[in-house]
């Protein structure tokens, strides 16, 4: 990526063309694991966005100081630090979300999306491009998780962002908040996304 990327394209690629979830299939564990409601998906998306943004900034700033052979361990330490910060802040200020996301918070470390962007983009580009790349990818990831969470919550609990639109006695498709529903809902969302993105381009 030697030539200067058009920044608008740089931002948009993460949302549509190279969407981390629907197109690149990165970070699938949290995508499937925490999206039993729209709120959880949004929370996970924002937490990941923060770590991605911060690690891209730091990696881009110190890229010339890191010897090539140890760059991966160096990136991992940087990412793990920000993940731990997110973990502590969530536990202190949003304990409800901390409990809901559970083990998937420390597992942000091994979200291939973050290490992938640090290695493939931030270590080769300047600060501004890296920030825009992280924002695009992070927002693309957040949108995907929120969409999946919303779809599962609507079908499975008959509510959206905890607002019920069916009566408490109504039988909803509980399958969709159970593990199989995660795979099935994502299968159809990917199908729809592919269809829309091939039609528009």
């Amino acid at each position, binding site marked *: 990526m030697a030539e200067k990327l058009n920044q608008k394209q740089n931002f948009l690629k993460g949302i549509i063309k190279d969407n981390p979830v629907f197109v690149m299939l990165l970070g699938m*564990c949290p995508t499937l694991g925490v999206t039993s409601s729209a709120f959880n998906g949004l929370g996970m998306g924002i937490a990941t966005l923060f770590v991605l943004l911060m690690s891209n900034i730091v990696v881009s700033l110190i890229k010339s100081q890191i010897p090539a052979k140890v760059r991966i361990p160096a990136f991992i330490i940087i990412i*793990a630090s920000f*993940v731990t910060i997110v973990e502590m802040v969530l536990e202190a200020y949003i304990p409800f979300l901390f409990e809901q996301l559970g083990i998937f918070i*420390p597992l942000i470390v091994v979200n291939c999306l973050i290490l992938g962007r640090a290695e493939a983009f931030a270590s080769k580009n300047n600060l501004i491009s890296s920030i825009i790349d992280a924002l695009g990818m992070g927002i693309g990831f957040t949108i995907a998780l929120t969409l999946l969470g919303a779809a599962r919550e609507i079908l499975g609990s008959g509510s959206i962002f905890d607002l019920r639109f069916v009566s408490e006695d109504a039988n909803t498709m509980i399958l969709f908040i159970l593990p*199989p529903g995660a795979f099935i809902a*994502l*299968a159809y969302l990917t199908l729809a996304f592919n269809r829309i993105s091939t039609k528009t381009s």
Partner: protein
Amino acid sequence: MEYIIILIAAVFVNNIVLSQFLGICPFLGVSNKVSTSVGMSGAVLFVMTIATLATYLLHEFVLVPSGMDYLRTITFILVIASLVQMVEIILKKVSPALYQALGVFLPLITTNCAVLGVAILALGLENGSLLKAVFFAIANSIGFALALIVFASIREHLELANIPKGMKGVPINLLVAGLLSLAFLGFTGLV
């Protein structure tokens, strides 16, 4: 008895891939052939067991006594990453045959969240002990192997099936995974 329950729970009831969603990347990535999925499962069994042993000891004897529990995530991932490297180097020297079989999968395992996930989950076991944590890791890697190998054999058959164009590739794989997960849901309440 307690150990049998851990085994059944990890393999069937709370299958690490199909109901806990850990290790989805290799589950979707290296499951196109049964032979590769067997190799991957072997590598995961190996690394997960050693990694859990190392991280459990580190947590019990270094992090907790020194009150630096908050460094858990960062130390665990470093231990796992360096362990994978070391296993690779040692295997190459000691057993070239095993290296041939597992070698290509080892670098992929560092970012396999199942390894870090099990290492963290093993800390939270009731009445935990080192033995129990290691057994938990072994049980979970068997669960991982089961899910991966069953999924790979379905995918091999799927190659020949007549699938609608838009469903080809990722969507149909996810759908199959969903049905597999549904089948495993039948085990809930077993223990």
